[in-house]
Each structure stands twice: as C-alpha cells, then as structure tokens.
C-alpha cells in the first residue's frame, strides 16, 4: 500500500518542509541537507524484495490444499507477490465464513501457515507493533 520508495520520498519531503526550516545550526543543517540528497537518490534505487513471498506462498498453498481449496499453483508469469496475495485471499475466504467443523485440523494448518507468513513479515521490519 505504501511502497518503500514512496515512503522514502515522503520522509524526504517531511524533512525538507517540516524540519529543515527549523534547523538553525550550520553543522546540523549541512547534515540534514546531505541526508535529503541521499534519500532522493536512494529512493530511485529501491526495489522491493519479494523472495519471502515465494517461501510464504509454498507453505500457504500446501495448507490450503489440505482444506480442498483448488487452483493453488502459480501460473506462468505470476509473481511471488501476486501468488501470495491470491493465497491470502483464499485463506481469508476460508476463515471469514462460518467455521468448517469438517476439517478443524486442516484449518489449524492454515492458521499455522499464516503464522509462518507473519514471521516472515516481521523479519522484514524492526517493530513489534508500537507507534
């Protein structure tokens, strides 16, 4: 939703417009202006790393398959990001509906696969949820 390159650009804008005008000390201004330049250049070079999506997708596909969900493979040309997204949508449909008592162990497997996905998400950030 907010890609890394876009958020870097937003950080640069906020520093330039909201912070820089309030920094009067020369050395601090110099460092901040250099940082603005670096952020502008680096934002052009950022590419999202989607390798983790392939890992998550394989675990999700296996778990959803045990629940009888069809069409879990990645067709040619589908990116790992798109494949994972499609599997998340399948998991959402499965879990949002009335509880399926016919395969409770398999639903546990889907939740376990989602927990694995969360672990991979968390490895990509430093945070545990606070502001």
């Amino acid at each position, binding site marked *: *939703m*907010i890609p890394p390159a*876009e*958020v870097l650009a*937003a*950080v640069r*804008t*906020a520093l330039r417009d909201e912070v820089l005008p309030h920094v009067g000390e020369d050395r601090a201004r110099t460092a901040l202006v250099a940082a603005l330049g670096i952020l502008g250049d680096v934002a052009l070079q950022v590419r999202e790393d989607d390798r983790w999506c392939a890992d998550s997708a394989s675990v999700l596909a296996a778990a959803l398959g045990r629940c009888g969900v069809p069409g879990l493979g990645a067709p040619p040309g589908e990116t790992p990001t798109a494949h994972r*997204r499609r599997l*998340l*949508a399948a*998991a*959402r449909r*499965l*879990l*949002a*509906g009335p*509880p399926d008592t016919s395969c409770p162990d398999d639903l546990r497997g*889907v*939740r*376990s696969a*989602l*927990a694995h996905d*969360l672990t991979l*998400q*968390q490895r*990509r*950030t430093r*945070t*545990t*949820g*606070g*502001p």
Partner: protein
Amino acid sequence: MGILDAPAASVEAYFTHRLGRGRLRLAERRLASEGWSDETGFLGFRTGAGEAVDLVVRRYRDGGVARGETDPERHFRFLRAMSATTLPVPEVLWSDAAGELFDGPFFVMERVSGFAPVPWSPEGRRFLAEAGTGPAGPEFAGILAAIHRVDWRAAGLADLAPAGDFATEAVDGLDARLAAAEDEPEPVLADGVGWLRRHLPRTGAVTVVHGDYRTGNLLFEGHHISAVLDWEFARVGDPYYDLGWVCAPSNRIGSDLVCMLLPEEQFLDHYAAASGAAVDRAALRFWVTYHQVQHCVRWLEGAAAFAAGANRDLRLARAYYTLPGLRRAVADLLEYA
C-alpha cells in the same frame, strides 16, 4: 489553516467577545500535541489587569485517524457531561461547530495542570512503572469504575445509547471497516472478526464508556492522576470496552504492565473492588481481541489515507510498517501458534 495559523488579532477579538472579561491580549499560542485525529492547542491571554487566562482548544481535523468513529459534537457533549461530575475532567467552556476562526470545528476548555507521560518513551515508561506502585495504580482503576458509574440518563446522554446489542453493532462496524480498508487480503483479521462473532459477550451492562482509556490520555500531579483527557471516542455501551483496551497487548508492548502502569491482575482486582463486581473474564477476552483487531483496522485506514494523499502525516506511514507486529498480536490472541 489550524490553531497556529489564525491571525492573532482575530484570535484576540474572538476570545475577547466569547469570554466577556474585557480586552484580551494573546500572550501564548502553541500546539500541545498534534494527535492522530485532532489538533490540541494552548492559548494564553492576558486581561487588561494582567491576569492570565489559559485555555485549551481542541480542533477537529477532517483527515485525522478514525474519523468515522468520532464526532466533535458528541465529544463536546460527553466532556460537558463528565465535567459536571466529580471526575477529574477539564471544564469545557463552549463548542464552535462552524469553526471559522481555526478552519474546522473546535471547542474550548480550561487548562488543567499536570504531566502527560508518553507511554512509548523510555522516560514515560519509567515514570508510569513507578507511579503504578503508588496511588496511581488504584486510582487508574477507581476512576474508570467511577466513569462507568455515571448516570448517563441523568447526564443527558440517553439518546446516545445503542439501539441494539452494543457488541454486535461494534463487530458489524469493524467488519465493514476492515473490508473497506484492507489493501491486500487480511485473513488473520478476518479470522479475528469471525472469532468475535462466535464469542459475543452478554454482560448486559450499559454505561458511559471513555473509549480510549489509557495512561497516554491522563495527566499526573506527582504520582496522582489529575485529569482524564481525550473523550473523542466516548460512547454509551459495554464497560468492558474500556477494560479490554486497558488490557490489550497494544497498550503494553514490551512491558508486563497494563498501560505500562501495573500488572493486569492488580488492575482487575482494583477495578473489581472499586466497581463492586467480579470481572467477567470471557467478556474481557472478547474486548481485548476486539481492540487488537480494531487497532490493525485503524492503522490500515490511516495507511489508506496516507497513500491516497488525504493525510501526509508520516506517523501514518510509520504505523503501516508496524502492522506485522499488530497482526501477530491478533494471531497470538487467537492461539495460532
């Protein structure tokens, strides 16, 4: 335009007229904080005799977080009703729905003294952990119980009572907001909503609910609580709504203490003693889970507002990047591991 932008002469003329204490001179104007939703400003005036008149202005911002849950008129009504009780709540003076002066609806309150700890900061955590071992611990629970004892009918809030079952309406609303806010599919949150539907509490209690009761919305004098602020989410509903938010993982990240103040069992014991009723653990678990899901939904809504350019507050982008940890908190409550 906001509180800081209105011409000083216009501010002086407006407050001189409204307060009727003679000509006022603007001596201080600063933002107390720029909240996630509203803007709060300190205004200090001097009368012709040199007397200080210190006020707080709370301005409603269209692009703020959780705008669908708040209403400036309702906020004002709750504050006015609560300030008429013995609760430590600032006196609210008037509401200006047209809000021409500051380009948005606002209301004006008296300024109360006190220290506002930031629970997420190391200094705030240290202060709260120490305060919780003293009088602030039982006060925190006792004030909440007192809020829940307010006679909301007598306070003129009867028209704000839920039309149907409070919890059912809350879950329906959450479900709709999740569907509107999710960018990529959110199976963990959808699972959370499903769990909530299967575990609706039947406490039967209907009280005043603060809606965002936590230590970040309190003022302290020494180690005593001197004021309860930020009533924008106040409503009439299930008191466990407040208990659940106090005990939610979001309010104790990296700490064993609820709201960084005191251990959960101590808090619940204090609350039970102050309210005279045992705590319903199933209802508590329901509302804790509700708030964890809702916290994620609020962050998704904020991220959507940022991505759409409706609000370029960097904190919203930061919140988006913290979502994996918040989703994990929901999964933990649902016992995924």
